[in-house]
């Protein structure tokens, strides 16, 4: 007998990093690594489960910038080139490691096959379009793809400007529709960040549900009878699913979390750093900056063990660990729904477990294998079944509690401080100024017929949206690649101001406009009129 349901929610996102004017660009590797280590392995998991007739349900947000990048011809070409080089490196690694160590050599051979297979899947099987692969599983009913606000802008800090929030939501919906040929039912609000009133904009776009962190539901304006284990609905009629804190802790926690198992692969040892200069030079950044190649030979090994003292990684042992963890997770979730079902007096609970998709595969190498086996384990019993949020709404809700969630995010400590602190607060005066100018200029030109001017206005809207990506503020807080994040903010502010000045002075540099349109070629269907304020 089924006593409850679980929704695994994977938030797949990368900021829009595309530099077509350069043959290679270090930060574009973020996408390439995510494709090889997370998106392709997940697609393989879906394929395996489909083939074995295992019913699985995953809710996945593919954010607009990610969709645009996955669909970009030049990034696809670059990815193929990147993979060819990686395969070349792997071939060398097979030779080199044959002289070094047997476990290492086994892994080198594994990587070579794995990368070849990934390239084949990408280039041949899905014709360079991973979006089509995800779409396939959505059409089959296993995958529920949701959208995100346009550039993953941090909405609570722009709530004073309804038009800015609206443009974020609208472009999130439009981009989804263009890539996935249907309207999105749900949305992942960037950084799981909700502040009072945001649900209104979602309702305007016919979005039926979104997610908040646990305390968003707990501290809502009425106490939620079922806690985070059944959705609530806002006054504007949008369903809200709260994050299950236990699932997050089981996976994330530094102390007890699965990814810390000693048998798993160590992220921070990579041949990109370990090999000698001359040998590795062609495979790292052309500036000589060393970076992760994805070829790693070491295991976590133990707590407080220096990187230099780690043991070699054995994928068979690691897979054994992932099998154990998948079974353990399934058992814990089953126990959890049994308790909840009892506490709720026979009302079925839903456990919502959201994660960054890139955790699986990129950070936790064995993560996709864990997911696959979690669904296999669930399939052995009736008690707990996977489900998507809309299926739960359709089938298991007669009445729903009305409540407004509390302002909250899934960032450290649960509020806004990751995106607003001494390392990044300087950006907001510029972002706000951009919104104010965008509003002013949109009002002025609302009936504009001149195509060139409309292009300038639309491009200004793109620059504003790109500057608003929460990623830049996040990176400044974490302290890695801060310069890139800071430069991106500055470049988009600067391009925006330039475009606005052209309109004011009626001196449009058409060539420069074309160049900017080419460089920041996101959201072809954008409409600056979204920024008009009556």
């Amino acid at each position: 007998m089924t006593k409850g349901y679980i929704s695994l929610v994977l938030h797949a996102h990368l900021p829009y990093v595309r530099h077509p004017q350069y043959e290679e660009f270090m930060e574009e590797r973020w996408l390439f690594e995510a494709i090889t280590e997370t998106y392709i392995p997940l697609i393989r998991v879906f394929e395996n489960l489909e083939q074995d007739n295992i019913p699985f349900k995953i809710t996945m947000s593919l954010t607009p910038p990610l969709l645009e990048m996955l669909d970009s011809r030049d990034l696809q070409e670059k990815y193929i080139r990147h993979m060819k080089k990686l395969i070349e490196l792997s071939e060398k690694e097979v030779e080199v490691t044959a002289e070094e160590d047997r476990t290492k050599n086994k892994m080198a051979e594994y990587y070579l096959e794995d990368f070849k297979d990934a390239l084949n899947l990408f280039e041949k099987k899905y014709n360079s379009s991973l979006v089509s692969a995800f779409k396939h599983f959505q059409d089959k009913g296993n995958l529920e793809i949701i959208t995100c606000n346009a550039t993953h802008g941090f909405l609570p800090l722009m709530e004073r400007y309804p038009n800015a929030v609206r443009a974020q939501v609208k472009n999130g919906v439009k981009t989804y529709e263009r890539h996935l040929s249907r309207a999105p039912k749900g949305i992942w609000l960037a950084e799981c960040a909700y502040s009072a009133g945001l649900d209104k904009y979602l309702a305007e776009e016919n979005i039926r549900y979104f997610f908040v962190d646990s305390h968003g539901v707990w501290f809502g304006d009425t106490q939620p009878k079922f806690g985070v284990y059944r959705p609530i609905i806002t006054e504007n009629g949008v369903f809200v699913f709260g994050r299950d804190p236990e699932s997050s802790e089981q996976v994330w926690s530094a102390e007890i979390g699965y990814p810390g198992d000693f048998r798993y692969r160590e992220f921070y040892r990579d041949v990109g750093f370990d090999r000698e200069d001359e040998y590795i030079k062609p495979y790292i950044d052309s500036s000589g900056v060393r970076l992760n190649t994805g070829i790693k030979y070491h295991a976590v090994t133990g707590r407080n063990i220096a990187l230099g003292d780690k043991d070699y990684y054995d994928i068979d042992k690691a897979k054994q660990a992932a099998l154990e963890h998948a079974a353990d997770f399934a058992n814990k979730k089953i126990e959890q729904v049994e308790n909840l079902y009892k506490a709720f007096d026979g009302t079925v609970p839903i456990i919502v477990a959201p994660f960054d998709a890139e955790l699986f595969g990129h950070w936790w190498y064995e993560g996709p294998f864990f997911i696959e086996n979690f669904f296999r384990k669930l399939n052995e019993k009736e008690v707990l079944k996977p489900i998507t949020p809309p299926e739960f709404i359709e089938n298991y809700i007669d009445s729903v509690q009305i409540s407004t969630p509390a302002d909250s995010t899934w960032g450290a400590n649960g509020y806004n401080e990751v995106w607003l602190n001494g390392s990044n607060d300087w950006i907001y005066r510029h972002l706000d100024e951009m919104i104010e100018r965008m509003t002013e200029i949109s009002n002025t030109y609302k009936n504009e017929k001149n195509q060139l001017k409309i292009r300038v206005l639309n491009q200004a809207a793109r620059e504003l949206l790109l500057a608003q990506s929460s990623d830049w503020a996040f990176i400044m807080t974490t302290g890695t690649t801060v310069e890139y994040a800071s430069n991106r903010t500055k470049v988009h502010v600067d391009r925006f101001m330039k475009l606005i000045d052209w309109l004011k002075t009626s001196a449009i540099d058409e060539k420069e406009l074309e160049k900017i349109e080419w460089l920041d070629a996101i959201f072809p269907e954008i409409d600056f009129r979204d920024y008009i304020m009556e």
Partner: protein
Amino acid sequence: MSRNVDLKEMKVVDLRKLAQKRKVHGYYKMRKEELVEALSDESESVIEYEDISEIINTMNSNPKIHQLRKIAKKMGISFQRKIKKNELILRINREISKKKTWEVVDLKNYSSPGGEKVNFNKENKTENIPELKKTYLKDKIVALAVNPEFLYFYWDFSNQTKKLMEEVISKNLKTYLRVYDVTYIIFNRNNAHTSWDYEIGKGLKDYYVHVPFANASYIAEIGYINENGLFIPLLRSNSAHTPQNSFSERSEEKWLELESGFKLSCTSKGILSKPKVDNIGISSAEFGKMNEKDIKIISGGGSFMRKEGGENK
């Protein structure tokens, strides 16, 4: 690479756009064949990418006059036989810069399948990163909630206000950020629950303020205290609301019947199986720890913080 073929495969809308860009006379009334013809005439003198990069290479390697002449001919630059070397270089470079912008235009086609070869920018990746304005010369103070305990304020002045502030300071009067607790009231400057003053010196542009209540609303003003001890406000912020960090005490709960659309009210019995609420809500100590590089507690009791510096990093 035949451009004609490419053109014939393009949609009329795109051809029209291209024609508009290239300022083809009367493009808007042309049919597809005419557009293709007009555009392919235009394209004849367009040099292919391989050539252009070869030309740039030659130009960079101190070319001889006969090489320059050859290049100029290839590019369709007309010149007199007695032309000076420097003048020829100038003309060629001018033409190259034109072609380079063409290159940008054409590269756009790259994103469509069957796109053309890209001649990548081989320059260093040290693009000029623009410096942003330090002020937009607007009178403005903005309040943003950081978490249940902290607010962030930033402000900017018009020239007029800036001058006024400087005058005030030169008279040895003090300038302040005054924060009002305006929870559940319509603020009229006299009805705030409480208020606090923070002295702001010259040049300061933002402030972190510790506030006592979660789920509360705050407004701030910037002003100065005049000779008579009166606070004279110059700018007022929006109202910022700190997030709730505890369970609601509301005694009623509302339910929506999905099928009928009926809304029902009943007495709230609270949450079934109350969760352990740890790790949520924060202490200022944790907040300070997180940004200890950037934020320093400068006042007694950790009541407020300010950032070192304050300019763009």
